[in-house]
């Protein structure tokens, strides 16, 4: 036995294995101890079933409005939903605006290029927090009062309480089936289009892929809308007055100070960065490509949409991924302007229940998960546009 042990110890391979096992087990024990001590002492999660305590109606979706009676975990989930519902729109709007400004900066029109430059240098060089404050407390406060009924009467109002816009409202509790049908129809339509395009490539005959796809999608949308007994209806906003004379918006949807300021600020700020990414990416496409396209008789529009933009997209996407993730993270600043996103909702819980570590752990998880989703989407797009 002793000889065997000495043999194990004297042989370099087996000794290395012994050392590995000992160190590995020791490390695992230490890690387990740390996890145990953290979870047993600090991570008491009983508070999440308690009631949230006060309502928050700054969401744009009535389903995401926090009720006072909601359990705290539901409040936090709705807060995460509010974060997502401002980030998704901010990313979409800032991408369009950024593309427009980035292209404008390369235009042959000197006024357009200068305007683009001023736009980029203004919003890129200001702190996002300052922009938010400016809109929430400067611009918003200067808007007319609600009782002036400023806007298009019966359709759209603007006041220092927010914007009132037409909105869709469910007519029965099974309305959510309709959006699911739309998603399914979109998947089918895309698959059909891809198949038609492939056939077109193989046979050389026009298969009208786009027409088929649009037909399938619109047909399914209309038929299912009727089959589900008109699940949504349009509601128009109005200015109402209570018995004591207080004015409120009734009907439609009210976009409050917090949501509008957060959306506008995030859009302006990130569109400036995206504009620079767009400009840089377009300029990075070799000039020979443009010259070749011109000599083949492409129009300016064709040259841009068929030759330059697809190649610029390859360069753009990794950088855009960064900006989209930053937009997601920076949306947390909106808690200072009364938008009920995840940090604001969580801070109220910390204030009442005091469980800071647990609550903030949830915020970490929300941002790790949402940023990984953004990354996954952008990486998938990246793979699809790269040269194969």
């Amino acid at each position, binding site marked *: 036995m002793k000889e065997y042990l000495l043999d194990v110890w004297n042989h370099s391979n087996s000794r290395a294995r012994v050392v590995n096992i000992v160190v590995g087990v020791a490390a695992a024990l*230490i890690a387990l101890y740390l996890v145990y001590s953290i979870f047993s002492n600090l991570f008491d999660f009983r508070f999440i079933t308690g009631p949230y305590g006060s309502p928050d109606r700054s969401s744009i979706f009535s389903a995401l409005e926090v009720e006072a009676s909601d359990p705290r975990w539901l409040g936090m989930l709705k807060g995460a939903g509010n974060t997502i519902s401002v980030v998704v729109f901010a990313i979409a709007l800032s991408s369009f605006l950024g593309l427009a400004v980035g292209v404008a900066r390369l235009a042959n029109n000197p006024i357009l290029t200068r305007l683009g430059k001023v736009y980029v240098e203004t919003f890129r060089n200001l702190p996002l927090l300052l922009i938010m404050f400016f809109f929430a407390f400067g611009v918003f406060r200067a808007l007319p*009062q609600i009782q002036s009924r400023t806007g298009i009467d019966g359709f759209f109002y603007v006041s*220092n309480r927010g914007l009132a816009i037409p909105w869709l409202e469910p007519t029965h509790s099974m309305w959510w089936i309709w959006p699911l049908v739309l998603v399914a129809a979109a998947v089918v339509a895309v698959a059909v289009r891809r198949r038609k395009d492939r056939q077109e490539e193989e046979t050389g005959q026009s298969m009208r892929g786009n027409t088929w796809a649009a037909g399938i999608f619109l047909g399914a949308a209309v038929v299912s809308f009727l089959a589900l007994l008109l699940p949504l209806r349009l509601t128009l906003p109005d200015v109402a007055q209570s*018995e004591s004379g207080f004015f409120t918006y009734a009907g439609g949807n009210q976009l409050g100070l917090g949501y509008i300021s957060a959306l506008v600020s995030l859009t302006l700020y990130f569109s400036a960065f995206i504009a620079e990414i767009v400009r840089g990416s377009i300029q990075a496409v070799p000039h020979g490509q443009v010259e070749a396209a011109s000599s083949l008789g492409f129009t300016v529009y064709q040259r841009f949409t068929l030759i330059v933009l697809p190649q610029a997209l390859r360069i753009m996407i990794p950088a855009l991924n960064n900006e989209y993730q930053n937009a997601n993270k920076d949306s947390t600043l909106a808690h200072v302007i*009364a938008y009920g996103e995840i940090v604001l909702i969580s801070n*109220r819980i910390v204030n*009442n229940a005091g469980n800071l570590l647990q609550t903030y752990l949830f915020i970490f998880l929300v941002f790790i998960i949402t940023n990984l989703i953004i990354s996954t989407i952008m990486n998938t797009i990246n793979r699809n546009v790269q040269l194969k």
Partner: protein
Amino acid sequence: MNRHGRLVSLFAVMAALLVVFVVAACESDDGEDARENTLDVIIERGNLICGVKADTPGFGVLNPDGSAEGNDVDYCRALAAAVFGDASKVEFKEATSANRFELLAAKEIDVLIRTTTWTASRDADLEVAYAPTTFYDGAGIMVHAGSGVGSVNELGGSTICILDGTSTQGAVSDYFAENGLTYSELTLQDNAAIRGAFIGGQCDAWSSDKSQLGGHQFTLKSDDGIDAVVLPETLSKEPLGPSVRDYDSEWEDVVRWVVNGMIIAEEQGVTSANVSAMAANPPNNTVARLLGVGFDGGAPSNLGIGHGKIPGTFMQSVISQVGNYGEAYDATLEAVGLTRAGSLNDSYVNGGLIYSPPMR
């Protein structure tokens, strides 16, 4: 060094790390089990660390020059006077509504005196112990005088501005739900923003603790010429007082009895001006016990507060350097327009709630 040597040294390093971890782990376990006696820590440190508000006139203001003022600040000074006989041996730390309980739990502060409402969940769940209430407050609502509203029950359909993260949010929500009224809420992060929103018509009403609304009503009139009225209803109970960590009863007793002592001093007419005369010649047994002196030639009674770690005459230092309950109130809260007479904060003798158990 050959490969074996490297492996052996790696092993040695890992083993050393393991030892360090285990030792550290054991030590931290010991630290958690043996609960620290805060009174001992304060005496050894040589000063008291007190968590207060930094920007609320009347309650807690930390000035840029390092000085501090306010009712909460006065109770910090009273505690320092009780422990050290010197009201200046106190360090003020700003406690925000978000970090106050973390500061207390992390032992960054010895006592939290920051307009903190005594609630069951804080008492039980956060393991915080409350000393007697020093100020009885409650949420109220203020509207423009021109609105013609005379009661909270007429506020259905209104938009109300509330400071975010305060218990006022819950109080308003509960009150309106109980009375079947609807309202919209605009929550902002500081009073300046709310003020602007109230003036600009972004909200119809402004809700906060009544102690705060009085001050805002005053500055709205003086700075902007705007007339506002505080509606008569009180929506919630907000008893404010000092709080300490649970399982720290020696220190908790000191905090509790310094506050009680200041209340008794007022009942008995002991003030900062006459305390030394009263100590030399106490008019009755109650005053003698309060000031830790004998009555009529007898021996001083030993109440056992602080178990001999603080002098039995601690209330003499408190009253001579800070004053009794009424003196502290007049100097700080009365000065910002919070009238005491007839309010909940009047002495029980006058129909208020300020009452102390006997010191005997």
